[in-house]
């Protein structure tokens, strides 16, 4: 299954041969072989469970105790086979000859230790500098090299005092401290905002190129590989199925899996029904229209195929430099959602008796409309206020000031009793389908829970119909959430949201936790259901690509304000606000990527 690219240099930095990893019961990696030449930047892509992280942990010799590896892993200049070498020898290599950067920089750093000390430690452990003092000095230098602002003060900070991007820079400083031959990065930017991601990737690329370090970059995101790497390995179910230059793999993938992966990643390429290309995976079933008497608002069967003709087209506007209030996407007549001068302030916890707590502005004077039947995207980075806005639209939070009106129901000051009807009309799908489903409830109870005043038999019938509508068989009803994959769980969440026949569906990062192939399926499902049930969709995401595909209108939110709003295509192609431009350039389309790589 594997193809080994012959390298021009005599001795590759890393040479992996016939690597198999497994437990006594099953094999997870099936005979992986690849080389990385000196200074070569190689990407390793694949979906969750494909074995890409196992490959890296095998190289580092950090596999969990329950797994065993066979085959050989060799580093240039090291006599021993890393798989069989004693831990003592590996300790000398780890952090010195080879170093690793992990995904989640918050948990990967010791929360009780100053970051400067953590960077210094990797040098004192390997005695690459003389004494602690010098290590500390060198740590500050390294923090300067990874462009951390105020490196001297930053060295004294604890991890929780830094932002996600800053923490990842610290990790990078640590990994590069002893000038390793090989740098392994496991999803280094997945936890970061898109604009920060672009900066950190640029930094990784620059550091390894300047020093001639070999790089193995693991990611699920083909755009990340295209940004940094020269060569890419594609993993699927424990095998490397494709190995080639990034440009070639991106434009002319050979293996059927790679072809499908790239098609599914491409949110701008759709079929003649306006749906994304999906990979044939066992979970898929085309949505089945639910049976008659259970769906009072049912559409004709072929409604999904009808092109949606939005009655309302948004004006393309941006916030003005003088901060004059703008009403974005103003709708004549009665909109589904009307928001005027909405502000939400938080008092930060822990104000003492002597000082008042500082006030944090979650949202500042936000005004917009969403027309009935519109697919409204809200895009922004972490801390932008998009989640606050979503929570207020769902009446899960209260505005500090301003007017919020959803389906004619004012949110401000409404009691839970007044909101009872509202709750069935406005439903939410959350990001993490594992965390938002009660692990002790059966699927049937989860999906039926929003129903009120419905007898058991009817509830059962409706649950069954709803599960069918999201492409799940009726026999899943008696199972628990942990027995499903991420995509299936998100289908269950969608079924639960739709069972009350809501008019407004709010989705909060609903596909962000999913693999690309599953993401395409869930996005198609959402598009089908929105058409079928004539839903007004509010889709909150950090991912401009997803929003562009699914939504007709998008609002870009930054620092508690909407900075730009308009028809998705217009905003994407001709961004008015500098922040939007930055966002757009940080999330290139597949075409754009291919252009960049081949150029």
């Amino acid at each position, binding site marked *: 299954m594997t193809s080994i690219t012959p390298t021009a240099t005599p001795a590759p930095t890393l040479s992996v041969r016939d690597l198999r990893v497994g437990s006594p019961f099953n094999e997870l990696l099936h005979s992986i072989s690849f080389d990385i030449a000196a200074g070569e930047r190689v990407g390793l892509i694949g979906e969750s469970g494909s074995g890409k992280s196992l490959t890296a942990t095998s190289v580092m010799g*950090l596999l969990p105790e329950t797994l065993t590896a066979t085959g050989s892993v060799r580093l240039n200049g090291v006599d021993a086979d890393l798989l069989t070498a004693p831990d003592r020898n590996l300790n000398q290599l780890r952090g010195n000859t080879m170093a690793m950067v992990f995904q989640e920089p918050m948990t990967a750093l010791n929360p009780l*230790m100053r970051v400067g000390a953590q960077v210094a430690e*990797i040098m004192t452990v*390997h005695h690459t500098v003389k004494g602690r003092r010098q290590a500390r000095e060198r740590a500050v230098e390294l923090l300067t090299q990874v462009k951390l602002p105020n490196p001297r003060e930053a060295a004294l900070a604890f991890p929780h005092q830094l932002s996600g991007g800053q923490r990842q820079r610290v990790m990078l400083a640590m990994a590069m401290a002893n000038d390793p031959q090989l740098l392994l990065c496991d999803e280094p930017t997945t936890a970061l905002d898109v604009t920060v991601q672009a900066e950190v990737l640029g930094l990784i690329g620059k550091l390894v190129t300047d020093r001639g370090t070999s790089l193995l970059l693991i990611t699920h995101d083909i755009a990340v590989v295209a940004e940094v790497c020269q060569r890419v390995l594609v993993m699927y179910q424990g095998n490397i199925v494709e190995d080639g230059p990034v440009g070639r793999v991106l434009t002319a993938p050979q293996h059927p899996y790679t072809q499908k992966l790239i098609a599914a990643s491409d949110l701008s390429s759709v079929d003649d029904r306006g749906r994304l290309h999906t990979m044939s995976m066992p979970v898929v079933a085309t949505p089945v229209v639910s049976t008659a008497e259970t769906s009072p608002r049912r559409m004709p069967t072929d409604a999904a195929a009808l092109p949606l003709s939005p009655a309302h087209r948004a004006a393309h506007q941006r916030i003005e430099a003088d901060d004059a209030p703008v009403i974005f996407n103003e709708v004549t007549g009665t909109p589904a959602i009307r928001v005027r001068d909405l502000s939400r302030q938080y008092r930060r*916890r822990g104000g003492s008796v002597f000082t008042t707590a500082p006030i944090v502005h979650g949202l500042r004077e936000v005004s917009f409309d969403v027309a009935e039947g519109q697919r409204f995207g809200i895009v922004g980075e972490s801390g932008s206020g998009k989640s606050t806005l979503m929570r207020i639209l769902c009446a899960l939070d209260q505005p500090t000031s301003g007017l919020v009106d959803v389906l004619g129901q004012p949110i401000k000051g409404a009691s839970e009793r007044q909101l009872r009807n509202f709750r069935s009309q406005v439903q939410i799908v959350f990001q993490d389908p594992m965390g938002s489903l009660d692990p002790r409830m059966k699927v049937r109870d989860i999906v039926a829970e929003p129903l009120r005043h419905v007898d058991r038999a009817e509830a059962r019938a409706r649950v069954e119909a709803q599960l069918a509508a999201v492409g799940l068989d009726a026999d899943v009803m008696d199972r628990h959430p942990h027995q499903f994959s991420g995509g299936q769980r998100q289908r269950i969440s969608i079924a639960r949201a739709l069972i009350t026949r809501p008019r407004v569906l709010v989705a909060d990062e609903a596909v962000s936790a999913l693999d690309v192939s599953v993401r395409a399926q869930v996005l198609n499902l959402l598009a089908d259901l929105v058409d079928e049930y004539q839903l007004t969709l509010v889709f909150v995401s950090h991912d401009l690509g997803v929003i562009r595909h699914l939504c007709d209108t998008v609002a870009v939110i930054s620092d508690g304000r909407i900075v730009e709003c308009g028809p998705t295509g217009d905003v994407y192609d001709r961004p008015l606000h500098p922040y939007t431009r930055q966002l757009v350039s940080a999330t290139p389309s597949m075409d754009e990527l291919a252009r960049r790589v081949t150029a």
Partner: protein
Amino acid sequence: MVLVVLRRIGVFATTVVVASIVTFLMLSILPGNAARIALGVQATEADVAAQTTAMGLDRPAVVRYLDWFGHVLIGDFGTSTVSRQPIGPEITDALGITVILVLTSVVLALLFAIPFGVLTAVRQRKPDGAILSGISQIGVAVPGFLAGMLLVTVFAVTLRWLPAGGWVDPGDDFAGFLEHLILPAIALGSVQGAVLSRYVRSSVLEVMREDFIRTARAKGLGAGRALFRHGLRNAAVPVMTVLGLQIATLLVGAVVIERVFSIPGLGSLLLDKVALRDLPAVQGIVLVLVVFVLALNFLVDLAFTLIDPRLRSAS
């Protein structure tokens, strides 16, 4: 940092005041007139009335509370209705003994729990780890008074190495003091130690799965060094929480252990005074016990702040 400590002190002082009010109220709403109780069943109504005035019980509750708590603040716990002697010195003497006993047993418990818990965690998959873990499970199940009686049977009655009970003041005879302290402290600390070692074990197991331990390994630290330098302090945080919660249990245990070893501590004093229906004394002892628990919790809170920088910033 200073601000955080000041705030914790403020919280501590407030809790003490609230505790004093609750203590006062609980004992004054008990059925029965304190004056009648003090005089016994033979007293006439006139005697009771005179006694009520003498004890100041005819004043409003607020005045009585302020009078009592105000005096407590300057170390005056009032006069015993039985012995007619001031209660303060009695309480202070007994408190000193209980503090020594409790703190020694906490230290013993930690000295046992930390190495034992870490060992059972590290050796989790090995047979010896399982055996050690089983031992601590048994320790959890043994009540303190039983441990005390077993210790007395073995070390005092059979082997005659240590005294079976009583108390010697450290100022009088330090060796004798240690001899008398050892068995009760072990009896009181062993159960706590066993319980704590379970928490140390699970906390260490948890920490060993953390990403930053993996980072430490990736930096080239060996497994033991990674655990020692990065794991233990992080593992200490949840253990401290449990320790704080256990302090109250420890005092209850002290009451029992003092009885078993006939040690004149606060627990023994409390039981004596309850038997004598000496209400002012009971009230004072209860307050001291409550403040003792609060003070230990305050210290645990401070220790938290020292260990975890995330708790240090005022905002």
